[in-house]
């Protein structure tokens, strides 16, 4: 069939205002602002003497540099107070609603977007943050932009874009026990590399994706940028519609029926062709753990730290050697059993309720190993409240975890929460870059269950072994 379209084709066509030279003018349905990437964009509007084009489609939140201390305010971490105060002033001046620090709707932008029903299937959503693709878990074309483009969307609700090519990543097989969405996306990035998705819009498909709950689909879409892509999404289905129904900004009544009819068509047609097709078998996938300083530097927990000497490509060999030196790991040794200093559960990748529930299930009745700092930072104030209603805060506190207020925290380490120099962390976040969790920090990224397991044993541990599954 020649008129078969991919989901991306449909989203592109619907939002195309007009061709524009060798680019296209594309309409943006929803725009999120976070405090660290919109300051200069408001200045641009002020200089041009224009207002926000569609303030009702624009949402502000404070998440990146806010303290996670109990009883926090804008000045709890003084080095970032300026950004928070400026965000308040700018949102007030330009008529943008702000979910401020003490608002029940506050949280990490990519957690509250779906939670509040701001992200919807087949829509365009942008934010000045690379993990905006998280909302792709609901079938939205969501992507991160820089501050210049934030200013452009504020002024016009549009962007000038070059059409990306399409890539379908198909996940086959059934996940084993103790293996999660996080392991699926890390497995994909490990297999194909951090640049495999560069220039592509990625559709995640296959039986292993279909059987994932929405929060797992968000974890996968979230790490599209670590795969090289600006956007990644899962076509909406009944699981999506059940998740969305009744949320604050989701259409209701007759509008819901109309929307649903439309959303059911927001899928790739049978026979639609993609520019690139990749596949990952989930049946044999082990829990993943990173060993280096790029998200592609991952191995199964039952494997050894790789040996650069076995690599032919000299650039790759050098970068592996450099990563291993930074991480203070020895090639050929088993990664399981490596002692850790910090265990962090949170972030837009894995800070939602199901992540916290799964970690709590493992922690319950156990104690954090002496000498380990273990921290939970819920992805939103609402996630925190729901977890507390289930008594999960007590599970973590009883075990010796810190239970903090919501924000980006140790994922970006711009709020006073960090891993000290030379210390080793296991983290449910998305980036194991050098110095990411603080200067000199050594980060291993993994699923929240793997972080919980390491917190109680004091070393990198196969969560399946701890749970008697392996």
């Amino acid at each position, binding site marked *: 069939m020649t008129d078969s379209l991919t989901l991306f084709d449909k989203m592109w066509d619907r939002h195309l205002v007009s061709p524009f030279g060798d680019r296209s*003018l594309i309409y943006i349905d929803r725009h999120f602002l976070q405090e660290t990437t919109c300051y200069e964009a408001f200045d641009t509007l002020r200089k041009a003497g224009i207002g926000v084009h569609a303030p009702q489609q624009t949402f502000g939140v404070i998440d990146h540099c806010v303290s996670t201390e109990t009883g926090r305010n804008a000045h709890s971490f003084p080095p970032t107070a300026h950004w928070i105060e400026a965000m308040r002033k700018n949102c007030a001046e330009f008529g943008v609603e702000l979910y401020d620090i003490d608002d029940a709707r506050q949280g990490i932008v990519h957690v509250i977007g779906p939670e509040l029903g701001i992200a919807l299937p087949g829509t365009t959503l942008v934010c000045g943050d690379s993990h905006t693709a998280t909302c792709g878990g609901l079938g939205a074309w969501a992507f991160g932009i820089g501050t*210049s483009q934030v200013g452009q969307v504020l002024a016009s609700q549009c962007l000038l874009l070059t059409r990306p090519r399409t890539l379908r990543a198909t996940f086959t097989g059934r996940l084993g026990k103790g293996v999660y969405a996080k392991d699926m996306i890390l497995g994909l990035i490990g297999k194909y590399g951090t640049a495999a998705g560069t220039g592509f819009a990625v559709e995640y498909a296959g039986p292993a994706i279909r059987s994932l709950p929405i929060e797992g689909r968000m974890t996968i879409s979230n790490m599209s940028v670590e795969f090289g892509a600006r956007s990644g999404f899962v076509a909406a289905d009944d699981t999506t519609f059940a998740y969305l129904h009744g949320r604050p900004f989701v259409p209701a009544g007759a509008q819901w029926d109309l929307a649903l009819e439309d959303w059911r068509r927001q899928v790739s047609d049978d026979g639609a062709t993609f520019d690139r097709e990749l596949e990952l078998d989930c049946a044999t996938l082990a829990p993943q753990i990173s060993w280096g300083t790029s998200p592609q530097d991952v191995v199964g927990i039952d494997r050894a730290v790789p040996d650069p000497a076995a690599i032919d490509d000299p650039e790759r060999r050098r970068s592996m050697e450099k990563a291993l030196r930074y991480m203070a790991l020895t090639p050929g040794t088993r990664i399981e059993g490596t002692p850790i200093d910090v265990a962090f559960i949170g972030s837009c990748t894995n800070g939602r309720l199901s992540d916290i529930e799964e970690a709590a299930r493992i922690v319950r009745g156990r104690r954090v190993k002496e000498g380990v700092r273990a921290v939970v930072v819920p992805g939103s104030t609402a996630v925190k409240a729901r977890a507390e209603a289930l008594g999960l805060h007590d599970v973590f506190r009883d075990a010796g975890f810190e239970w903090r207020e919501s924000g980006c925290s140790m994922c970006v380490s711009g709020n006073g929460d960090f891993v000290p120099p030379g210390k080793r962390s296991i983290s449910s976040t998305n980036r194991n870059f050098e110095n990411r969790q603080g200067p000199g920090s050594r980060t291993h990224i993994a699923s929240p269950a793997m972080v919980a397991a390491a917190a109680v044993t004091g070393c990198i541990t196969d969560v399946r072994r701890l749970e008697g599954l392996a």
Partner: protein
Amino acid sequence: MKRFDTVTGIAAPLMRDNIDTDAIIAARAMEGGPRDLGAVAFTNWRFDLNWAEQPEFVLNQPRYRGATFLVAGRNFGCGSSRESAVWALAQYGIRAVIAPSFGDIFQENALQNGLLPIPLDTELVQTIAAAIERSNDAHMTVDLVRNEIRVAGLAPIPFAIAPERRRALLEDKGDFDLLVEQLPRIGEFEARDRAARPWMELNR
């Protein structure tokens, strides 16, 4: 935006793959509000925890200090969308980065600021890096009028760039102005779209 036509200056080889935007500008460098980001570019490679220079880092070596160009490994600028990474490079004085590939968002941010990302084949990038290391003064020229790079000891190296992005750089015309000019057309689209997708209307 900063106009770009023909620029000559020092080129510094930084032949690592996956240089991420956290490496280009660390979170700790942005604390305390707006500042000169050029002074803190490559934060944790250039400085230790007490902000003392690390002499072995390429931009701290006398030969490459004050570089105008970077010659880098694959996937340059991957990671965070922070445009401050581009501002840090631009404020340091970097006008172009030559690498086999770039992070998508970084590449867009760079073009928005008149910093030219030049993707070339890996082997060609390695050849340029080697030629700079061999040359007397580490200088090279990026000529956007003729779409070529000139390095001592090598034949001129042509590079490709989308015609409209090239024109925007030569004429210093940014997307913001282009989009504002389109507001009437955007308004017409919104009216059509409201009729087609009434459920998208937010009454806040």
